[in-house]
């Protein structure tokens, strides 16, 4: 890890000295990691790829402000989280309308009724997954991102706070609200199943 950091810093120095290609090594090294978190936040493959590209572009532009004491991986990860947050924030209107439709209790009941009626457990599992995705879309961008970082990426409240640019306590609260909302939306499904 330490050797990798040294390599990262050497690459950054090279980039700042005019060797643009040196940034390529950093992009290759961290693209997978950024795609993973971007996909989890956006929930969409195409959006996640856009986020990865945008994150590296932003990182390149801000590279002069990168402090040599920091870890490039953590730094670019945070930028990617911000990009993903922007992405889901920009498409929030569409999501809200979709969530609004899906959050109709009657519609949920209909879907659940259909699920319980079917004997195929695989189909049931897929439907539960779909419902969870819908439940995720009911969260605010901050709640969703905080939850993804805590529940899936296993980041601490401090790391989440740093990535989102909020106070650690606010990050904790965002995770708490997200879990509450998700449990509430999934409760009905569990009862019916």
């Amino acid at each position, binding site marked *: 890890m330490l050797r990798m950091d040294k390599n990262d810093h050497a690459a950054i120095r090279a980039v700042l000295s005019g060797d643009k290609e040196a940034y*390529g090594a950093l*992009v290759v090294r961290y693209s997978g990691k950024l795609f993973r978190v971007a996909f989890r936040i956006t929930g969409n493959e195409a959006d996640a790829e856009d986020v990865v590209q945008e994150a590296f572009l932003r990182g390149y532009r801000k590279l*002069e402000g990168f402090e040599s004491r920091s870890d490039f991986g953590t730094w670019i990860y945070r930028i990617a989280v911000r990009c993903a947050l922007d992405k889901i924030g920009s498409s929030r209107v569409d999501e809200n309308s979709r969530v609004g439709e899906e959050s109709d209790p009657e519609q949920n009941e209909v879907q659940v009724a259909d699920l319980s009626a079917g004997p195929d457990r695989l189909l049931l599992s897929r439907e539960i997954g779909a419902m969870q995705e819908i439940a995720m879309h009911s969260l605010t961008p901050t709640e969703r991102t905080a939850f993804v970082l805590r529940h899936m990426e296993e980041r*601490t409240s401090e790391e989440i706070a740093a990535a989102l640019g909020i106070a650690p306590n606010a990050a904790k609260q965002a995770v708490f609200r997200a879990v509450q909302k998700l*449990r509430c939306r999934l409760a009905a499904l569990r009862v019916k199943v």
Partner: protein
Amino acid sequence: MNHLTEEELIAHAYDEDDKDAVEQHLKACAECSETYTALRSDLAEMKFEDVPARDAFYGNRVWESISRLLPVYEARKQSWLRGGMRRGLSYAAACAVLVTCAFIGGRLWERRQTQTVAENHSQQKKQSVTHPPERVVVVVLSDHLDRSERLLMELKHADADSAEMVSPLRDEARSLLAANRTCRQNVKHNDDPALATTLARLDHLLAELANQPEGLNSTTITRLQEEMNADRLLFEVRVLRSRQAASTAQPKKGTI
């Protein structure tokens, strides 16, 4: 017993609390334990869509797609240099302005100082005209009268035929003549007719002694001795010297 809130249970599930205290409570409280079990079950069920796998060349593809959009930092460095140059020029201009201001300020200050000194000088001159430094004049006059008295004494007892005696008299007379004229100028401002008269006579005598074209001869010496005796010049000089000595010992109030 206070039950744990949902927030506390969630924090415990994510290991962000006082683990031991909560564990202890959960062991003691069946209701909280049940709620916590349900929460853990819900969290465990929250398994979302797996992240689609990216192949080994994904990073390269990302780089290919963005590399053409990135400017070379060298160009930015040049712009930084240009910025640095601009900053440098700004500093240089600021320094030049400061130096110019300092120079002009210095010149003005110098001129003002010179003017002040000149004003002070002229004021002093004016003051010296209206209020001559009496004490200094007194001292010089006293000295002058002392020297003059000695010269007159030597003249009185001079052997007219001895060139060795006459020559120093002439030199001393020349020296005293200049001093005597200075004293006369200063005495003009004092209301002291006795002193002015004596110095005038002394001036005449000193001029005779100092400026004989063919040098001092016995005839001239004799004539000057007779004039000096006739005018009682030696006596008057003595009187004035005594008076000056007395005034030097007890200077007037306000004199230096």
